[in-house]
Structures are given as structure tokens and as C-alpha cells.
């Protein structure tokens, strides 16, 4: 296949990324989903520099509350200090490397390594070293041996971490996506997550899931034909590819994108069933006018829509289902899917509980739809074991060159929702980050490309 060399790129490219997908990402060499060297570059260039989802404020409300999670394959602790400030730091002792916190969540005063008892505070500082005075000399400086900290920033209660001091602020990194997130995060009360996350190991490359959630409405009617035939509702009309999904696909400058397929006043777009469907409909009926008043008619239109989206690189969500996921990479050919439930804080408890059940029933570990996706992504990944197969590029040309600016919606808009613009846009951001060593160049390159 012809190598597409990006003339703007003059930096070292040891894995030849520039030739593995073109600047428009209309096709991809399968090695980006398979190769160990590329994966290691991805951990360094993408995961160690991007804003990665940690947790929601409400899941660690009290001083001392913590969760442990991953940023890429780096273990981190996210803890609320005595001062109420949430901090995050590596979950690996600076003495010999052991894990310092083995629980998924809890409340702690400190984190004590099991190996020699080094104790770290809620801020990651090394607070205590057993027998320090007796066995270490004057050159031992506890102050220099704290756990490496992570930048933590909140977007309306959703906490993200970044290892890179030179990365833009979370708000700048979100770019136009913040405006879209506000559709459900800046409503009165805001949004929150119900945890703890459900975790499932799948033998696939994380990007197949990230791009699928970013904008693969196309698969919904076919992959999920069985489940949609059972649960009906707003998705039933696309079952078995009977119809093209109405609505939009949105892309933003720094790789975040989503689909929004609007409903109507008669058919609110969700997959909830029974009593919860009625309660959700009541909520929507009362809420849409509030959103229209506070955020305008365009966001009221997409508030009343089913969404599937990905915030670059590995945070995804579905509204109307209402799931929030992180694709935790575990090597190039394996990942863990972490799933929370997305609700609005002002919803009655009964509705929140019902939405949690609905999310778990459809997109949890035994989800009616989740089970359909896992095997597809494993097949996408593992067929690349064949050397000849690996030379066959993957196609993502749907809707190419149909993106356009919109007078109100920021970023770019494509129609219909069956589209691969946001899928390509995610991979274009990935390509840019893989090729550029500093954030100023990444942002300049993306802005130039996006303006073109």
C-alpha cells in the first residue's frame, strides 16, 4: 500500500505511523490495533499526555475517600484530602515499586506499602518510613520520595487526570466538546455517575471500542438486532438495518465526537422499559423546556436524543441508555471495560435506580447489547494475527468529505447519524499525537487540519 507521508511531520517516526493511516484516516493499517511497539508508543504519546477519566466527585465525597484506577496501564490512586481537594498520584511505591493500595475504593488516612511499610499521605507525599532515623543517613530525603502526582481537573464534577504538565487545560482539551457535554452536565443539578464500575476483560484492542462509541450508529441495527428486537423503543426502527438512523454526527478539534439521534415528544429516545420508561418520559417532558430555556433550542433538540460518543482517547458514553465507560488498555490485544451509570443529579432516586438497572441490563457485564460487541471487537483484533491479513487495510470512508460547519453547533456536523466522520476524527487525533512530541504542535496541527 502507498505510504502517505505527511509533509508537515519532520519528527522521528520510528514505527512509521505516518504511513499506517492517511491524514484523513479513511483507512487504517491493521498494525495500529495489533503491534506491541506501536502500543508502547501509544502509552507514552497518547495515554501519558491526554486527559483520562478518573472518577466523579460524588463517588469520593468525604475527606479520605479514595478510588484506585488506571491511566493507560499506570495504576493511580485518586483521593480526597483533609482539605477537601481531590488529588491523584501513582499507586506504586518509590522504594521497590510495589502497589501501595490494593482496594478498589474506601476511606483511608494513608496508603501503606506491604513490603516495608512506607506510608504515603492522601496527597501522595511520603509521610512515614519505618526506622528511618536508624537505618537511613542524612542524605535520605522523604520530601523527594513522594508518589508522582497527576494533574487533576474537573469538568462539572467529572474528574480527569493528566500526567503531562505541558498539556492544555481540561477545558481547552475538551474544546467544542464542553459545549456539548453541557447539554446534560450544565442542566440544573448537573450530571453524576453511579458506581462502582463493573469491569470486564475483553481480548481486543481498545481503539475498536473507542471508535465504535465515537460514532458507529451503523452497527446498532445489525450487531444488536436481537437485543433491539426484544427491547423495542427508539432503536427498534433501525433493527435489521431497515432504516438509516436520523440525526447528526458531531466532531470536535481534539478528537472527541458523538452521534445524536433525536427523538420526538411522542417517542423519547431511550431504551428504558416498563415503569422506568414512563418515569424517564415524564422526566424528559418536564426537563426539555428547562434545557431549551437555559441552553437554547439546538441543545434542547440533542438533549432529547440518544447519544453515543467518545471523549478522546478512551472515555465513552451513551445517553438514553445511560452508560459511561472507560476502555482501559491491557496491551494491544486486550482491554478492560469499566462501566458506570450516568444520571442527572436532580432525578428522583427511583429513576436513578431504574436507569442503573436499565444500563446494567443492556450495557453491563451481562448486557443484552454489550455481549454483542465484545466478540466483534475480538474478531477485528485477532484476525490480524495472520501476516497476509494484517497487510489488508481497514476501511472507514463512510461520509468522507461530508462534514461541514454549522451556524450554532460548534465543531463539524455530518448527516445522517450513520457516518464514520467521528470515528476518523478520533483516529486523526491519535495520529497527530503519535507523530508530534509537544502539545503546542499537536494543537496547532489539529487546528490547522480542522480549519482546512
Amino acid at each position, binding site marked *: 500500500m502507498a505510504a502517505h507521508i505527511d509533509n508537515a511531520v519532520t519528527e522521528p517516526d520510528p514505527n512509521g505511523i505516518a504511513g499506517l493511516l492517511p491524514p484523513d484516516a479513511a483507512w487504517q493499517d491493521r498494525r495500529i490495533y495489533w503491534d506491541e511497539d506501536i502500543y508502547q508508543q501509544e502509552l507514552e504519546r497518547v495515554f501519558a499526555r491526554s486527559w483520562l477519566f478518573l472518577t466523579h466527585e460524588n463517588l469520593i465525597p468525604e475527606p479520605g475517600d479514595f478510588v484506585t484506577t488506571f491511566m493507560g496501564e499506570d495504576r493511580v490512586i485518586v483521593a480526597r484530602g483533609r482539605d477537601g481537594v481531590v488529588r491523584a498520584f501513582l499507586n506504586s511505591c518509590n522504594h521497590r515499586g510495589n502497589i501501595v493500595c490494593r*482496594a478498589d475504593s*474506601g476511606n483511608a488516612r494513608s496508603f501503606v506499602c506491604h513490603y516495608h511499610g512506607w506510608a504515603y499521605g492522601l496527597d501522595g507525599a511520603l509521610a512515614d518510613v519505618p526506622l528511618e532515623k536508624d537505618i537511613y543517613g542524612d542524605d535520605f530525603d522523604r520530601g523527594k520520595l513522594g508518589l508522582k502526582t497527576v494533574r487533576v481537573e474537573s469538568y462539572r464534577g467529572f474528574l480527569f487526570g493528566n500526567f503531562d504538565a505541558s498539556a492544555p487545560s481540561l477545558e481547552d482539551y475538551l474544546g467544542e466538546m464542553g459545549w456539548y457535554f453541557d447539554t446534560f452536565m450544565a442542566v440544573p443539578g448537573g450530571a453524576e455517575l453511579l458506581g462502582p464500575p463493573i*469491569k470486564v476483560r475483553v481480548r481486543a484492542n481498545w481503539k475498536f471500542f473507542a471508535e465504535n462509541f465515537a460514532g458507529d450508529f451503523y452497527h446498532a441495527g445489525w450487531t444488536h438486532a*436481537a437485543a433491539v428486537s426484544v427491547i423495542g423503543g427508539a432503536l427498534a426502527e433501525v433493527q435489521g438495518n431497515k432504516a438509516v438512523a436520523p440525526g447528526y454526527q458531531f466532531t470536535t478539534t481534539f478528537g472527541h465526537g458523538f452521534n445524536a439521534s433525536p427523538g420526538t415528544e411522542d417517542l423519547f429516545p431511550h431504551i428504558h422499559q416498563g415503569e422506568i420508561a414512563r418515569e424517564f418520559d415524564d422526566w424528559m417532558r418536564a426537563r426539555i423546556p428547562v434545557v431549551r430555556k437555559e441552553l437554547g433550542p439546538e441543545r434542547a433538540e440533542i438533549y432529547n436524543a440518544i447519544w453515543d460518543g467518545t471523549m478522546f482517547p478512551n472515555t465513552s458514553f451513551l445517553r438514553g441508555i445511560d452508560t459511561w465507560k472507560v476502555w482501559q488498555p491491557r496491551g494491544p490485544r486486550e482491554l478492560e471495560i469499566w462501566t458506570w451509570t450516568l444520571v442527572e443529579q436532580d432525578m428522583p432516586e427511583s429513576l436513578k*435506580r431504574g436507569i442503573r438497572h436499565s444500563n446494567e441490563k443492556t450495557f453491563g457485564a451481562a448486557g*443484552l447489547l454489550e*455481549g454483542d460487541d465484545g466478540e466483534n471487537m475480538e474478531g477485528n483484533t485477532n484476525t490480524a494475527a495472520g501476516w497476509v491479513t494484517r497487510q489488508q487495510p481497514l476501511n472507514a470512508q463512510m461520509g468522507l468529505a461530508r462534514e461541514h460547519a454549522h451556524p450554532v453547533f460548534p465543531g463539524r456536523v455530518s448527516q445522517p447519524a450513520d457516518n464514520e466522520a467521528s470515528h476518523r476524527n478520533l483516529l486523526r487525533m491519535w495520529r497527530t499525537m503519535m507523530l508530534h512530541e509537544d502539545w503546542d504542535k499537536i494543537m496547532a496541527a489539529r487546528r490547522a487540519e480542522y480549519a482546512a
Partner: protein
Amino acid sequence: MSAVAPCLDVPLEAYLAVCTFLYREARALDEERFRDWLGMVTDDIHYWMPIRENRFRKDKRPEPTPADAASVYNDDRTDLDHRVQRFESGLAWNEDPPARVRRMVTNIDVESGDTPDEYAVYSNIVLYRNRREDEEGWFVAARRDRLRMTETGLRLARRHIVLDHNVILDENLSVFL
């Protein structure tokens, strides 16, 4: 007999009936006779499998309940029926060709229930799933059941599945335990 009888909380016939029920239930599921299985559960069934967080022993938070837990299953009969309908639709691509699934039910202990017509039943289950060429998954769990004696025989009225996994190590848990 007088020496062993006090070990049983229920009549021997009841113990054997419960064991037979659990084995038949496992066989129906292994053979993908899901409608038959739905016939073995009550209309007010609650079928619950919460996820298992790693928490420190000193953690004082109460155990999660069906109302506040993150769950793999938290199903009533309608939910279970939907899952069965998905299998029956002929459109569940990941079930075709079918997986090979085998359930081993052990450690069956039967106590009297809260009401005269119910038994509290404890058992362990190991489920082996083998899919496609070489995909293998093992799920191990304890089960706390409530079996109810009805006019048409024993029926499953409650099942609390205590799954011995933190991360689910196979791509999905779309199997009844």
C-alpha cells in the same frame, strides 16, 4: 438413622427434591432449554448478581443491597424473559454457532425457609464455557436461593449469586448461574 437425621434441617425427601431441582435446572440451562428454565422460576423471582469490589477488611460500609449495588444481574421475571427472547430471536450472532456450557452444582445445603412453603438453599456453582475454537471462560459462585413449594412443585423464587470475580475475566457474563 437416628444418629444422622439431626444433621438434616428438612426431611430427607425435601433435601433430595431440592438437589434434583437444582440439577434439573442446570441441565435445562446447559441444554439451552431456556423456556423450560423460566418455567422453573416464580413470577416474583428476583435474580441478583452484584459485582464484588475489593474492599479492605476494616471498611465499615454496609454490604451493597439490590437497591444500591452495581450488578451484573438485578432481574425480575420480565428481565429474565427479555434475555431468553434475545436467545430465541435467531439474531444473537455471538450465540451462533452455540457455545459449549457446563454447570457443576455442589455443596448443596438446605434449611427451612422464612415461611413453611419455602426452603433456604445454599449451593456452589462452577460454570465452564467453551466458545469458538479455543475461547474458555470459568465462572465460580456461591448461590443463596429461596425455593418455594407450589402446587406444581418446587420453583426458584430468589437467587443471590455471590460471584468470585472482581474483574469479569471473559468477554461477557451472558450465562445464567
